[in-house]
């Protein structure tokens, strides 16, 4: 029989003290003491699913516990609205925009509907991502403080979509980006808030060694042997075939197994094709484990990460790369590509190893397997890096600090 560490039914701020230290929790309380009763409204487009909803579902209760009057509102819209915002999303990442010109009117009409429905009278209004960006129209006489939190990479946006959105964005008091690389040149202040993970969430909390072992065995992985793992969708941009090649480069010298675990193959035609390419590259090697995991596999992912010897993230393009954050938090040595937000997390030779090619990744893995003391040091330092910068509590602190700065510039 396997057991898991007990998880509090309702996570309270004090539950973070063993992770952060009581001084850090006291500091959050000290910062919040000057914001007691201040009203905050967070607005996004989904209540569940997706990284933003995941962050808000922890951020909002913590801010409330700290004494701020926080409300979280989710905008509504028809399928046509969400098709348009999905197209916006892809276009803002640099893709083409194929929707008709009327799509902009539909977008604004839904924003207008939501504007009529929502209160939008808080002292601090934080609008997340492009979907509700036009709610800034609700602001009267520059009342309150309005912030736009952009969770996506705007470094190379499609000009048609960006030129439509920008006039709304620049009416805010400031914009928050996840990385300097993702920001734009704007006439309003831009702030840096890293994405974050919750150390007490199912995907990140401590697990009993027995549960980790049992999970590995359930997937046919030998816990006694070296395990290299990449957790990612079966997507060409995550370069799973490159990971197989790197593993093969390691296996010539050192015994190891490879785990490629992720979703995307069942519901995405391209995912299925990529999985097939990976199967071919694997060539029937019994030490390569391809795991198609459903979206509710947080515990399994946690166990796979914790049971691994080295975590790989050999992406060709990446957003921030929260799977790297998760691995670092678990004190795992990481070998990753220097793309997107990864170099912010993996400081080469300090908190992990960066690689620029299949051969480079294979070499760094071999180096770490041959130098376990170095691997352990990187893991420890990576954990501290996450503790300082990429936890939900750091995000809470950034919001408190920003609100205080806005009150007293």
């Amino acid at each position, binding site marked *: 029989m396997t057991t898991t560490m007990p998880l509090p039914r309702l996570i309270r701020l004090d539950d973070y003290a063993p992770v952060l*230290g*009581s*001084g*850090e929790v*006291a*500091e959050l309380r*000290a*910062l919040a*003491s*000057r914001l007691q009763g201040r009203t905050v409204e967070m607005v996004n487009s989904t209540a569940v699913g997706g990284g933003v909803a995941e962050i808000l579902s922890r951020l909002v209760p913590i801010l409330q516990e700290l004494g701020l009057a926080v409300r979280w509102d989710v905008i509504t819209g028809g399928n046509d609205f969400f098709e348009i915002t999905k197209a916006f999303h892809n276009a803002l990442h640099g893709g083409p925009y194929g929707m008709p010109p009327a799509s902009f009117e539909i977008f604004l009409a839904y924003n207008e509907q939501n504007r009529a429905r929502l209160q939008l009278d808080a002292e601090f209004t934080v609008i997340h991502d492009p979907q509700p960006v036009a709610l800034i129209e609700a602001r009267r006489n520059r009342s309150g403080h309005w912030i736009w939190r952009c969770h996506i990479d705007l470094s190379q946006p499609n000009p048609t979509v960006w030129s439509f959105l920008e006039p709304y964005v620049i009416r805010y008091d400031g914009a928050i*980006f996840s990385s*300097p*690389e993702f*920001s734009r*040149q704007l006439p309003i*202040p*831009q*702030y*840096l808030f890293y994405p974050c993970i919750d150390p007490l969430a199912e995907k990140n909390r401590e697990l009993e060694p027995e549960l980790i072992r049992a999970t590995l065995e359930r997937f046919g992985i030998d816990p006694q042997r070296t395990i290299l793992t990449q957790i990612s969708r079966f997507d060409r941009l995550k370069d799973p075939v490159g990971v197989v090649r790197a593993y093969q480069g390691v296996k010539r010298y050192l015994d190891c197994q490879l785990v490629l675990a992720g979703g995307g193959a069942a519901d995405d035609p391209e995912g299925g094709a990529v999985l097939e390419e990976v199967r071919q590259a694997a060539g029937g090697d019994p030490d390569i484990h391809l795991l198609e995991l459903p979206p509710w596999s947080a515990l399994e992912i946690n166990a796979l990460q914790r049971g691994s010897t080295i975590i790989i993230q050999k992406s060709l393009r990446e957003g921030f790369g929260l799977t790297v954050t998760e691995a670092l938090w678990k004190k795992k040595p990481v070998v990753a590509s*220097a793309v997107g937000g990864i*170099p912010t997390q993996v*400081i*080469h*030779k*300090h*908190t992990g190893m960066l690689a620029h090619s299949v051969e480079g990744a294979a070499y760094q893995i071999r180096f770490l397997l041959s130098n376990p003391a170095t691997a352990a040091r990187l893991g420890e*330092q990576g954990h*501290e*890096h996450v503790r*300082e*910068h990429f936890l939900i509590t750091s995000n809470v*602190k*950034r919001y*408190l*600090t*920003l609100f*205080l*700065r806005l009150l*007293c510039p």
Partner: protein
Amino acid sequence: MSTAKQPFHFVTASYVTRISDQKATNLSELCQGLDNSSDASVFYHTFQSLSRHHFLTEGFSNDFAQWVLAACNRPQLAEQLAALDIRDYLSLAELRGDLRRIVAEYCQANPQHAEQTAFEPFFFCEGMEVTVPLGLEAWTLEDFRGGLERLSHASFYYHFIASRLRLQLRTNDFSLWLSTSMGLNGLAQRANRIDIYTNTLESARDILVSLVKEELSR
């Protein structure tokens, strides 16, 4: 137990990072950036960098040196930049001047490297500070020890590292109080000698707590 002339007030500081419009894609642009960036930006990439990466106790001292090494592959220049010890500076203007001079001299001596595109750009940022009292004060050395043990990293950093600029003295808040309010000059000097480059904030605090305990046991 002796009582201080003035209590020590523990404060914490929190920073929100502002992304500036400036970036550098080569050493020459870094030099220009150092000319034009704000004091808050020089502070962020030097003093605050030490705090943000305090858990790295070897080979990482400021963002400029790290970028020159990792993105420009210029270890000689990186070493020169890393060798600047923020404890030697009482003003950001002075620190900026030295950073700029070192980069400019390198570019002049190695023009072939000055315009080479870095592997990734350097983005200039600024740290915007908010300070909040923790409601903790020390009238005695015992109170002081108790307060130290309860401090967050940010608070310790504020009093021990960032204070040097604020005070415009080659000391820190803790040493200043120990010396001027408690008359403990020896302890103040020992505290001021704790190496912030080879310790984490946590280990530096532990050393300071040990020094205070030693003093208490005399």
